């Protein structure tokens, strides 16, 4: 058909269609490098449950929605730890010589954030806690020297890694207590099954110097606190299944629990408003603003996603706003800057949802992959607003 048309017009097409623009010049393939961190960088861990031995960590620019880079992060994704100045990403990872068989190696891999390449690794005991991803299965000291990795075999312990010297330091037994809540340059807390927290103080070399326990402050049977917590300075805020906030002060001496207060008034509690999700709380430390994913549901819904984020002023303990979400969220994080973004995600939806953290207005949907976004993270405050003293949202 075309052949016959062409047959009537035997002029060589290119001979007359030659345009007057200059031809494109030959190009050379290059490799991108990352610029300095933006306060609106967003990090999404993809546990990739259908192929969890091949998990990923994605980096996005929250302003443009553009993907910036990815880390190929081995098996059993939880979250990454970030150097305070964002020079490195430290990632606890699990490997097998035959991916799902053979010899297991657990490591903390060090990634440079300019080249975004693996630049080193530290082998740790092959015991790191795995399962449903948890933000508090690892932590980093405030000065960025030590990374802590939580072990559950189900015996409980913490591995300490010196990322400056790139060496494994020690494994600290923590019977009955687990999860990692950094509380300073040489200290971290853990939650215990008896309703207390335990604080470990480390020597300068990362070995254990001291253990301290809080009095009991929650009832692990009647109304346990979830693992999900946020930090502002010396305080960690824990949340019970029924919506009570338990702040614990780690500013010196033994950990000091503060009197609990409630996210819900009596009517809200009767209406079954509940906290829930994989990582349902976030904080904007500089303004003392708490963000909590909320849903309505009965007992056993403490891990359900929510359609709302309730916003609280930590100083007054008053609810300041309710954000309606475009899509149910299981995990949220808030950027540390003065014009903060709130990023929300759920493993069931392959996308990130970006909101203005002050107004709740939706800014953009970043379509995935990440295919099953689990823990979302933002850059450390110190990396972008020069306030190392103000520990941001974990």
């Amino acid at each position, binding site marked *: 058909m075309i052949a016959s048309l062409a047959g009537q017009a035997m002029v060589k097409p290119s001979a007359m269609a030659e345009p007057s623009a200059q031809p494109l010049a030959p190009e050379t393939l290059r490799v991108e490098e990352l610029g300095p961190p933006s306060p609106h960088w967003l990090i999404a861990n993809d546990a990739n*449950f*259908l*192929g*969890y*031995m091949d998990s990923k960590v994605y980096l996005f620019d929250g302003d443009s929605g553009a993907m910036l880079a990815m880390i190929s992060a081995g098996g*059993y994704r939880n979250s990454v730890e970030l150097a305070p100045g964002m020079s490195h990403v430290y990632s606890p990872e*699990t490997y*097998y010589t035959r*991916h*799902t*068989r*053979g010899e*297991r190696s657990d490591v903390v891999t060090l990634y440079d954030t300019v080249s975004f390449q693996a630049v080193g690794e530290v082998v740790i005991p092959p015991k790191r*806690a*795995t*399962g*449903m991803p*948890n933000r508090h299965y690892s932590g980093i000291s405030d000065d960025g020297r030590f990374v802590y990795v939580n072990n*559950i*075999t*189900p015996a409980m312990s913490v591995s300490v890694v010196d990322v400056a010297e790139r060496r494994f330091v020690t494994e600290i037994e923590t019977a*009955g*207590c*687990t*999860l990692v809540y950094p509380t300073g340059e040489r200290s971290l807390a*853990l*939650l*215990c*099954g008896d309703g207390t927290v335990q604080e470990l103080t480390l020597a300068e070399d990362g070995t254990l110097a001291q253990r301290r326990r809080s009095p009991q402050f929650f009832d*692990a049977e009647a109304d*346990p*606190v*979830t*693992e999900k917590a946020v930090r502002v300075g010396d305080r960690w805020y824990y949340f019970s299944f029924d919506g009570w906030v338990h702040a614990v002060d780690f500013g010196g001496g033994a950990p000091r629990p503060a009197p609990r207060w409630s996210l819900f008034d009596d009517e809200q509690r009767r209406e079954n408003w509940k906290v829930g999700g994989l990582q349902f709380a976030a904080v904007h430390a500089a303004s003392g603003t708490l963000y909590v994913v909320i849903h309505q*549901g*009965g*007992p*056993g*819904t*403490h*891990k*359900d996603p929510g359609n709302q984020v309730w916003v609280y002023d930590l100083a007054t303990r008053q609810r300041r706003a309710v954000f309606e979400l475009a899509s149910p969220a299981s995990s949220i994080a808030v950027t540390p800057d003065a014009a903060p973004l709130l990023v929300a995600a759920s493993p*069931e*939806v*392959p996308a990130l949802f970006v909101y203005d953290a002050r107004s709740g207005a939706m800014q953009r949907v970043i379509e995935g992959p990440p295919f099953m976004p689990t823990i979302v993270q933002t850059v450390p405050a110190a990396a972008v607003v020069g306030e190392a003293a103000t520990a941001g949202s974990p």
Partner: protein
Amino acid sequence: MNWLDRYAARSTRRVAQATSRRHFLSRLGMTLAGATVALPLLPVARAGAPREAGDPESCDYWRYCAIDGFLCSCCGGSANSCPPGTEPSPVTWIGTCRNDADGRDYVISYNDCCGKSACGRCNCTRNEGDRPVYQPSKSNDINWCLGTTNNVYHCSTAVVIGRAAE
């Protein structure tokens, strides 16, 4: 219906909530029955052999009240058997579920089957009685492929290990 919905449908919360409500009503029913108020909600007791009802490939099956994972029943195993070539976890978490067919509560052991990557089928998450990981014996968030040759998780079972203490 989109694929993620379908993927989630055999799971999860929607089913779990429905089940919770039913369980809730059933408990309420029994309490009222205790006050001699007869309610059709009550399972009708018949004499004889042990009984259970429901579809082990469905997330609302009674034994799955505290499960979180891929159902081995959809993966070549069953509620109390691991698929070929996998290894049962010797330690695990425990839940208490009500068998509506006989009105009794049972202790259920949610052993994982290990040694192969995710089966990926019949994802089911129900959290009745689930507790944070600092109470590991009640936590379904923990990967219970522990004490096995390796910690590679394939699917989850729900094995009756006995009647719940009154």
